[in-house]
């Protein structure tokens, strides 16, 4: 007894195949959308800003005169900010991830920490700004320093790093750990010598994505109140500074037309920095990616 009418099935086949092909096309189009937007964005910004982009632009401080305006303070400031955010957020993020993946027992505290982290990932950046202002700038009297802003930003991007690192640590094959334990290595030795090295590509990818977010954020820094114009560079993490996105935002709000082009040039610098960081991530990912 046959319950399935084979000719019926055969008749439907071409339609199913066609639907599959059409959807494949749609999925591809959707993927293109992102790429097209990126292309348009880049095209517009480059055509507007490329004229202003020269050595002077990188070496000058901000100025009221568009032709003399430069991005030095903001660029160096952003790099200083990253120099605080990167180690702090990576250390805390990876530490937390190791704790959650390797040490934490299944109890309510662990569950609470996990829920808490995924919730923090969704807290608006501006709320972190309010936190930074109250805790770092005021309570800890760090003033509007690189350190205060860096710590604020670190907390902001921490969840991203934690989640990425957790994934990376979880993906390290069990048998590598077993091999290490099997030779009498302790837990921490195993983590330090086997798990972390194997998880590094994933951790760094997450880290760089987090830093890309930190480098482009404006709102929390506005709230923290870091200054916009300075014509000197920070010497220590306790000095004040300014960053690229704030400088760019300020230029865009100037009445003079030329400042719009200066802003575009600033955006190009920011994008180059961003792409530079992303390509490091991709390089690391591709270089260290081991097939287990």
């Amino acid at each position, binding site marked *: 007894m046959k319950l399935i009418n084979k000719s019926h099935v055969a008749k439907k086949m071409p339609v199913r195949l066609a639907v599959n092909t059409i959807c494949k096309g749609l999925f591809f189009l959707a993927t293109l959308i992102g790429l097209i937007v990126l292309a348009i964005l880049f095209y517009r910004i480059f055509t507007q800003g490329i004229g202003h982009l020269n050595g002077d632009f990188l070496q000058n401080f901000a100025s009221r005169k568009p032709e003399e305006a430069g991005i030095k303070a903001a660029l160096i400031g952003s790099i200083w900010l990253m120099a605080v955010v990167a180690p702090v957020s990576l250390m805390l993020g990876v530490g937390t991830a190791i704790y959650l993946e390797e040490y934490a027992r*299944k109890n309510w505290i662990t569950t609470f920490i996990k829920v808490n982290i995924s919730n923090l990932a969704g807290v608006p950046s501006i709320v972190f700004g309010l936190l930074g202002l109250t805790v770092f700038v005021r309570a800890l009297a760090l003033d509007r320093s690189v350190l205060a802003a860096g710590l604020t930003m670190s907390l902001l991007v921490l969840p991203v790093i934690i989640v990425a690192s957790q994934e990376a640590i979880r993906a390290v*094959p069990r*048998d*590598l*750990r*077993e*091999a*290490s*334990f*099997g*030779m*009498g*290595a*302790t837990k921490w*030795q195993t983590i330090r*010598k*086997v798990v972390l*090295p*194997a998880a590094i590509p994933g951790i760094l990818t997450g880290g760089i994505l987090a830093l890309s977010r930190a480098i482009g954020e404006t709102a929390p820094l506005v709230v923290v109140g870091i200054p916009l114009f300075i014509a000197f560079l920070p010497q220590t993490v306790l000095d004040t500074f300014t960053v690229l996105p704030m400088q760019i935002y300020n230029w865009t709000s100037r009445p003079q037309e030329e400042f719009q082009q200066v802003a575009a040039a600033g955006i190009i610098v920011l994008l180059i920095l961003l792409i530079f960081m992303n390509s490091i991530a991709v390089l690391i990912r591709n270089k260290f990616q*081991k*097939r*287990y």
Partner: protein
Amino acid sequence: MNMTLTREKESPAIATGAVQPAASPEKVYETSYLNLWYGENHALKNINLDMHQNEVTAIIGPSGCGKSTYIKTLNRMIELVPDVKTTGQIKYRNRNILDQSYKVEDLRTQVGMVFQKPNPFPKSIYDNVVYGPRTHGIKNKKILDQIVEKSLKGAAIWNEVKDRLHENAYGLSGGQQQRLCIARCLAIEPDVILMDEPTSALDPISTLKIEELVQELKKDFSIIIVTHNMQQAARISDRTAFFLNGEVIEYADTNTIFSNPTDKRTEDYITGRFG
């Protein structure tokens, strides 16, 4: 069902050639009344087994019978699985290793392990071998070099890799990787080596090489090997334990097990009636 087995029951399926061990040498492991549960699942039931120095002990049995579970208990690797409970005793050189005061790191420094799938670290061949010694605090470069050479020679892979010690271990073939894992294990100069189906992921040639190696190694070490390949057990072991559903059905000289099993189920298994 159109299947009949023509062979008579009396003639054992596979005659074995393992040499009978001379008298009973010193005991390395003594397991008594070992029970183990995975949560609710009673995976090992009242295991009683003794293993001897400079012998190869094979553990055979169908899939899921508890072979891996048992061998992982011998170096307490089983603790990595959450929710495992054990009762009973396993004495290694006269000390009960299931006693929590027994440091696992100590135990595992004495008892090396080789796994089913070769699992080298994604590091250079050299770094793989010195991983254990370094972990145990040996820093001296010259000593480390000596350890590497000795271990790789011991694992019969020195000639193949001596010119590429600093290349990544992932560039080796499966069989080479497995021998590297054995070398890595030899590097900590263990007393006992546990092997869980060390050849099941390998091609015939590599398998043969490893089998020969095991025969070599037993001069210096005691070896416990899990295999689902009865022929392999017959070829290389001195004693064989047959596990079924978490119980030891029969444990005897390999010769005896394969030529004259006492239990009907052992016979059924080795004659290929199931498994």
